[in-house]
């Protein structure tokens, strides 16, 4: 008996030791790409005003280094955009369709702007990239158009409805190629009533870019359905345009036809043509730029500079001056913002 108890105790200790080794190995799992809710983190640099971002279907505001989750209904939210009177446009998506809502800054639904769901399978639609015209009268967005002769052929096109009566039949601003190119997205309504958007296409040329390459080009139309003026080249492959508050510059994301990296570029805009693209942030994957309210800097999403496979964080870059080049600064860490949802930045 004197030996049994110590023996059992030692064997129990051995079992515990084995289990501890098993458990310890579990703690060695790579967690570099685990992310936290923004509300569990603090911003790394203090940017003035309020910033709205999206992560995992929820909308967060960032003020004075602190994130707050908006009390929006439990939809899957993406693509916030500035609305009238400080309200927020946002897309709620499901597996079959997406709707557009006007939310208060706290997240309450002010009203539903677009309803794209249907009990008929092919009458469901997507509505993305909502934008209100500068005078507040018109809601622009990208919606899918299906070729009546081929249900395979679905492309985005830019549509617009009066903001006061969004249930009316939309005006078609850009008829996309209607031939499997992906179509037209990311509308920017201009103060003069014209529109900038991103037009996607597929090269049928054997040279640059290579035949079969897909690319985006910024396009400009002055009236609905007009033939667009293309502002960037296929080789530049640009999209996600953001107009500066004074309307004289456009920030955009370009791939230069490299599928694996992007750059954040800025070009001057005189109302009809675009100046030379100037990169202000290079690699690995800058996305979804937004101008600061004073137009002196750009907020965007990007991975860690040293880890292209890491989740997307907020980054900020001041515009270069003649005295000082802009240097990107990381605004957040440990989160995983939705990179196809450009942030809103209000004063």
């Amino acid at each position: 008996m004197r030996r049994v108890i110590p023996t059992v105790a030692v064997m129990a200790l051995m079992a515990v030791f084995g289990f501890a080794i098993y458990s310890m190995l579990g703690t060695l799992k790579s967690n570099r790409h685990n992310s936290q809710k923004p509300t569990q983190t603090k911003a790394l640099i203090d940017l003035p005003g309020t910033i709205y971002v999206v992560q995992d279907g929820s909308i967060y505001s960032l003020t004075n280094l602190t994130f707050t989750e908006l009390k929006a209904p439990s939809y899957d939210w993406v693509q916030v955009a500035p609305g009238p009177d400080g309200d927020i446009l946002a897309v709620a998506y499901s597996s079959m369709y997406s709707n557009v809502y006007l939310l208060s800054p706290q997240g309450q639904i002010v009203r539903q702007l677009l309803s794209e769901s249907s009990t008929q399978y092919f009458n469901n639609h997507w509505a993305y990239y909502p934008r209100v015209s500068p005078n507040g009268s018109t809601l622009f967005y990208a919606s899918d158009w299906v070729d009546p002769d081929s249900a395979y052929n679905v492309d985005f096109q830019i549509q617009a409805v009066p903001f006061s009566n969004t249930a009316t039949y939309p005006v078609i601003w850009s008829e996309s190629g209607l031939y499997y190119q992906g179509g037209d997205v990311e509308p920017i309504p201009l103060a003069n009533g014209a529109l900038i958007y991103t037009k996607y296409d597929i090269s049928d040329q054997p040279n640059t870019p290579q035949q079969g390459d897909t690319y985006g080009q910024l396009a400009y139309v002055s009236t609905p359905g007009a033939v667009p003026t293309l502002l960037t080249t296929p080789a530049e492959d640009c999209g996600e345009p953001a107009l500066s508050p004074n309307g004289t510059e456009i920030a955009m994301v370009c791939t230069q036809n490299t599928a694996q990296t992007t750059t954040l570029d800025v070009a001057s805009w005189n109302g009809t043509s675009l100046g030379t693209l100037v990169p202000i942030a290079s690699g690995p994957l800058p996305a979804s730029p937004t101008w600061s309210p004073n137009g002196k800097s750009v907020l965007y999403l990007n991975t860690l500079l040293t880890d292209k496979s890491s989740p997307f964080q907020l980054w900020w870059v001041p515009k270069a001056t003649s005295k000082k080049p802009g240097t990107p600064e990381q605004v957040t860490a440990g989160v995983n913002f939705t990179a196809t949802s450009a942030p809103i930045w209000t004063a």
Partner: protein
Amino acid sequence: MLVAALLVFGFGLSGVGGVVAYFLPAITAALNITGHATQGGTGKHPVATPSTSPVTSSSQPITVLLLGSDNDTKFEADAVLTQTMILVRINPQTKSVVMFSIPRDLWVEIGDTQSYAKIDAAYSDGGAAEAITTVQNNFHVAINYWVWIGLGGLVHVVNDLHGVNIVAQMPILDDEYPYDLSGNNPYEQARVAILPGPQRVAGVAALEYVRSRHGDVLSDIARSQKQQQLLLDIKASANDVGLADVPNIASSLGDSMKTDMSVTQVTSLLPLAKALGNGDVHQVVMVGEPYFGSDYYPEGVGGPDALQPNWSAIHGLVAQYFPTA
């Protein structure tokens, strides 16, 4: 002295037990995944004779036929179409990789059967052996190994990596995407919308990205481009994977991966895979003329939507990237 030795032995044994228990799923999966014989499936032409070329030195370039399939209930297990066929040439000396996509709709002689079909039917018809014979005969390239991946496994691996970053080159809209990995009806459809630009996607979205083909005029060719891109994105994410992550990933792969490579051969390639930068990987996708006829043939040369090969142009391209010497 004896007691001390027994104690050390006992604690050592229990520690080893803990390690074995932790890695047991990986060991089991590794044994399930690797070392499969190159033989036919349950189709019309099951082949029993291994037909891969032997590798004689560790510095010799090796060519792997990567096969990807739906592994849903539309098909019998082991008799599925291969929606993905990529020849991967790994050159240990130059530390470089070539990825060469084979369009699934290519109209070819299947194996040695003297009957013609789309090339994606080869695996369904006669398993890995017939797929290898078909590719070797038609493309004039020697294949050393094969790897088959079920698309469901891809979803789990991407989820285990906490997602991968992609750059969607265009909006992808598909109203008739096959909704066959969940639910009871393998012919059910789903609506898919993938927005353009850089983004982080989880497993299901990653699969939608590489699998959707209806909303693209280049159809399967565009899908080949996206598949190669996703493989590189997965490799970038997998660079962060440590030894302790292996059991989870191995369990996820489960029945969704098979290869004739041994565990040792797979292990020997991992350091090279980790060291590769994107610049070391050459992606080849054949687009339009001169490799194919002017377009898909709606009624096909005996089959719907088949792609007619121009072998002289294709063989020239293959010789460029898969030299025999």
